[in-house]
């Protein structure tokens, strides 16, 4: 048998372990929030195919979130399980990127957000594919294979909307404009990030990953004549979430709050 994950985490330096906690929580919250947001399209997406696609994407992301929360629970070893971490926090304790705090919006907003997020998430996963923290490396290398389909889907739709003048392109431009200040917030620096890089848990600092991400998406934006997102204000961190998330939090915690000890 392989070594228990809690044992591997305990072997890390305290500062690295604390930063690993932040990394896992931010990744899990990102996947949870975008997955839950996209599940809102189930039944009302503009095409039947997209109803299926968004539901499937949401299910993928929630699966990734569940696996990341489960790993975090073992890293922390404080006997709080994945569900407790996912549901038993106040809104300000969630660590997802601010780009996910704009509300569902219309279809163009959904596509703009998915494209920016999926490409950023893939860049972050690439930065963890050789991680020295083996349980994370294993999980990431599984997740990357699935995220490939997400990037294909988001890219196809971004191009489809961008290349149709009139309402589709106008709505897409409006969505990108609204997201612009927060577009790069997946790369908000983590507390203790230097210690993760030093321990090779993470290949590069978030700022370097952001530069890689920009290099990845620039050809797509140039091809369909879209304005590249400006540099983000990353000083607001991952805690200042705003009104749309208050509503979403109320939705996704409603069952748990109604009976915290219920089991399925």
């Amino acid at each position, binding site marked *: *048998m*392989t070594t*228990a*994950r809690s044992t591997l985490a305990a072997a890390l330096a305290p500062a690295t372990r604390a930063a690993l906690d932040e990394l896992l929580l931010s990744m899990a919250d990102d996947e949870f929030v975008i997955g839950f947001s996209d599940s809102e399209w189930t039944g009302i997406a503009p095409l039947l*195919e997209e109803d*299926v*696609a968004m*539901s*499937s*994407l949401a*299910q*993928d*992301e*929630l*699966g*990734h979130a*569940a*696996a990341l929360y*489960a*790993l975090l629970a073992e890293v922390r070893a404080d006997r709080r399980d994945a569900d407790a971490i996912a549901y038993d926090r106040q809104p300000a304790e969630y660590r997802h990127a601010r780009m996910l705090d704009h509300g569902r919006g219309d279809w163009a907003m959904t596509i703009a957000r998915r494209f920016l997020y999926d490409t950023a998430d893939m860049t972050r996963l690439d930065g963890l594919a050789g991680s020295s923290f*083996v*349980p994370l490396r*294993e*999980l990431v*290398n*599984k*997740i990357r*294979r*699935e995220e*490939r*389909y997400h990037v*294909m*889907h988001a890219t196809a739709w971004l191009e489809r909307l961008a290349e149709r003048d009139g309402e589709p392109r106008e709505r897409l431009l409006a969505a990108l404009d609204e997201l612009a200040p927060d577009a790069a917030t997946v790369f908000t620096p983590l507390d203790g990030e230097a210690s993760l890089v030093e321990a090779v848990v993470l290949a590069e600092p978030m700022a370097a990953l952001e530069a890689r991400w920009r290099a990845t998406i620039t050809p797509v934006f140039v091809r369909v004549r879209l304005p590249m997102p400006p540099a983000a204000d990353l000083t607001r961190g991952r805690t200042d979430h705003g009104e749309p998330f208050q509503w979403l939090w109320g939705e996704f915690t409603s069952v748990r709050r109604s009976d915290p000890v219920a089991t399925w």
Partner: protein
Amino acid sequence: MAVGRIHVGPAFGSGGDVVIEAVAVPDASVEAIRSALADVADPEIPAISIVDLGIVHRVDVSGDGRILVELLPTFVGCPAIEAIRSAVSERLAAFGRPVDVAISFEVPWTSERITPAGRRHLSESGFAPPAEPEDVRCPYCDSANVAMDNAFGPTLCRSLFYCRACRQPFESFKAV
């Protein structure tokens, strides 16, 4: 790498009288356990066993006699994995030992893990075996004149296709 475990089966190491079983309990060799697991069907595609699907990773019998099975989910969020865990525990109960079924990501499940027999069973059930979208062939008429309708299908691991030759919609396993 265990993500979580369930224990289904008799309590291990309990005392009490020695009971002579009327039914012969099979030897718990790794080969016998793997062979028994070939009886467990995938709950979403019953034509294929979990062994042919390639999701059975490590099978072991510990020094104290516990059976350990590690499963590799096809997709991280696969909702069928709990049903598969239960089915594995039920099937292996015949060995009369405690059974631990763990989920592992030690190696990623990939399409290449499906056995040749598994690929055949998939085709016979109307599912195209995993291939890159441009290489998918119709499982009914073997035509390559097919179109992907949707990369996403009724389960996380399947895409929707249409065969222009025999005008039949079909599903293909995603290549991951």
